[in-house]
């Protein structure tokens, strides 16, 4: 365990990933205290180029892009974490049950999981988003979470199925433990690192999914998120107006986020998956 921390500290990928995340996270958390205006406030004219007043210019509504970025990143992160959390919970529960129970339940749960994998979740996402009349960050996060869990479920199932046959699980069984207790104490700790990595990936994909559906205009109302910022920029022709500041920063931030999370993930992967490392 201590070794793992040491290795982590040496993994440049992990460190850079964390550094990026901390930087962005710090900006998101601190900036709104520095600049206490309402991000919705239309302080300037539309698409004012970067200036002293507006370090990143203004968007189509004449809002300060930098301030919006702070709030938008926050929302994106929120959706990502929420979606990641939900996807993780569903995926882990289904994966654990399928993997541990085996047999009939495994067949059922695996079939459901595979269905969700093969039916592009993005399609479901679109269909559900259209169906919902009022969309908030919460709802968007929940539906993303509810459609992206199968990858986690599948991986957790595989791990659980192999752990189930380990002797310590047998020992636990002949110690008379119940199913839930075995799953929680004997299996969960072993896949914890994996689950954590899955969470990171799910968070990244949650951020992406939010951005994607917001881009399609199916994002949350009354909310600034990186996706809705892009959506506005496109809808209000930032590109034609040459207002690069309205869409490049959110686009890059989305990429940056995913990048940081991917880095952290592959850093962790090297530690938990020794064979990958060279």
């Amino acid at each position, binding site marked *: 365990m201590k070794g793992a921390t040491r290795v982590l500290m040496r993994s440049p*990928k992990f460190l850079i990933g964390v550094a990026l995340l901390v930087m962005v996270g710090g900006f998101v958390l601190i900036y709104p205290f520095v600049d206490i205006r309402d991000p919705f406030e239309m302080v300037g004219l539309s698409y004012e180029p970067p200036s002293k007043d507006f370090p990143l210019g203004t968007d189509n509504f004449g809002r300060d892009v930098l301030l919006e970025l702070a709030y938008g990143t926050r929302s994106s992160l929120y959706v990502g974490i929420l979606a990641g959390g939900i996807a993780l919970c569903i995926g882990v529960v289904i994966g654990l049950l399928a993997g541990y129970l085996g047999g009939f339940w495994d*067949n059922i749960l695996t*079939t459901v999981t*595979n*269905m969700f*994998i*093969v*039916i*592009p*979740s*993005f*399609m*479901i996402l*679109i*269909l*559900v988003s*259209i*169906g*919902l*009349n009022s969309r908030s960050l919460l709802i968007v996060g929940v539906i993303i979470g509810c459609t992206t869990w199968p990858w986690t479920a599948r991986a957790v199932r595989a791990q659980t199925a192999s752990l189930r046959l380990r002797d310590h699980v047998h020992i636990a069984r002949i110690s008379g433990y119940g199913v839930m207790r075995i799953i929680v104490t004997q299996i969960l700790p072993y896949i914890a690192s994996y689950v954590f990595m899955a969470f990171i990936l799910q968070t*990244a994909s949650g951020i*992406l999914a939010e*951005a*994607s559906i917001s*881009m*399609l*205009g*199916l994002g949350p109302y009354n909310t600034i998120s990186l996706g809705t910022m*892009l959506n506005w920029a*496109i809808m209000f022709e930032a*590109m*034609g107006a*040459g207002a*690069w500041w309205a*869409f*490049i920063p959110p*686009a890059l931030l*989305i*990429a*940056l*986020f*995913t*990048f940081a999370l*991917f*880095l952290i993930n*592959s850093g962790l*992967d090297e530690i938990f998956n020794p*064979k*990958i*490392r*060279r």
Partner: protein
Amino acid sequence: MRHYLRYFGKKLGWTFLTLVVAVTLNFFLPRMVPGNPVDAIVTDLVQGISDENRVKEIYETFNSEFGVDKPLWHQYLIYVRNLLRGDLGTSFGQYPKKVKDILRNAIPWTVGLQLPAILVGWILGNVLGALAAYRRKLFDKIFMPLSLAISSFPFFVMALLMLYLFGMTLGWFPIGGAYAFDVLPSLSWRFIGSVLYHYALPFLSIVIVTIGTQAIGMRSMAIYELNSDYVLYSKLLGLEDKKVVRYVFRNAMLPQITGLALSLGTMVAGALIAEIVFNYPGIGTYMFSAIRQLDYPLISGCTLLVTVSVLVANFAIEVVYGFLDPRIKMAQLEDK
């Protein structure tokens, strides 16, 4: 062989079941929306008509035309029956066009754009990923973070940035559409040239992102394989590196095929948004406008089409894969 057939029989049955679920989701999910899409069509028609009965009459005609006056389950049955006859219904938004006809126009563009792009991206990504794993050193040090970075770009973000940079700012490429505004489809060089020119940017944006994603997967697969016992053993028997590397690539490539099957859904869906950004007349664009107009039949048609193609692709890849990789063949035979 019998077991093999049985395995695929099962697989096929399973695929069919998924299809049924997909069809059902496709029907019900968009119909969760509170509004009645007929309103939109009829509103224009009845604007200013003060005779209430007249208005009602027109409404009813259209309601029954679209079958929205029947209970949902009944509509579903009709939907399934029509599907079996190859009838995807009539578009609300482009009334009275048939969804089938709309999709027929869109499919060639989407397939023409995405299939080559995804395949090229996949192949290049794998080759580069394998190289990175093998070469390591500087190549890997630069390439690896780069592809990680690239793969962090969602398709549409990449499309957006490329459009802005190469289309709007530098003006190297057209900024949208499938062919130039002043040519008409025909078998002329002018037209074909124009199509290719317009193809470049959307194609590249999909290829680049796919390369990034695939390269990462391939790299770690290849590294895993490079560390395996058979590599050591082969080398200790004096096999030349070239040959060993070929073993490794092949073995690392094979799991990537399943990866391709599984990520097809994500890739296709992602590439659809790239279509929208480039105003490419493919399914993505139609889906986008269908969403705007709440055109259920068209939305259902698009999502169904995408889902079915992903399903079919998955199935096909699974079949092919079994033949390519003896390991999987064994696993398939043993599959419960």
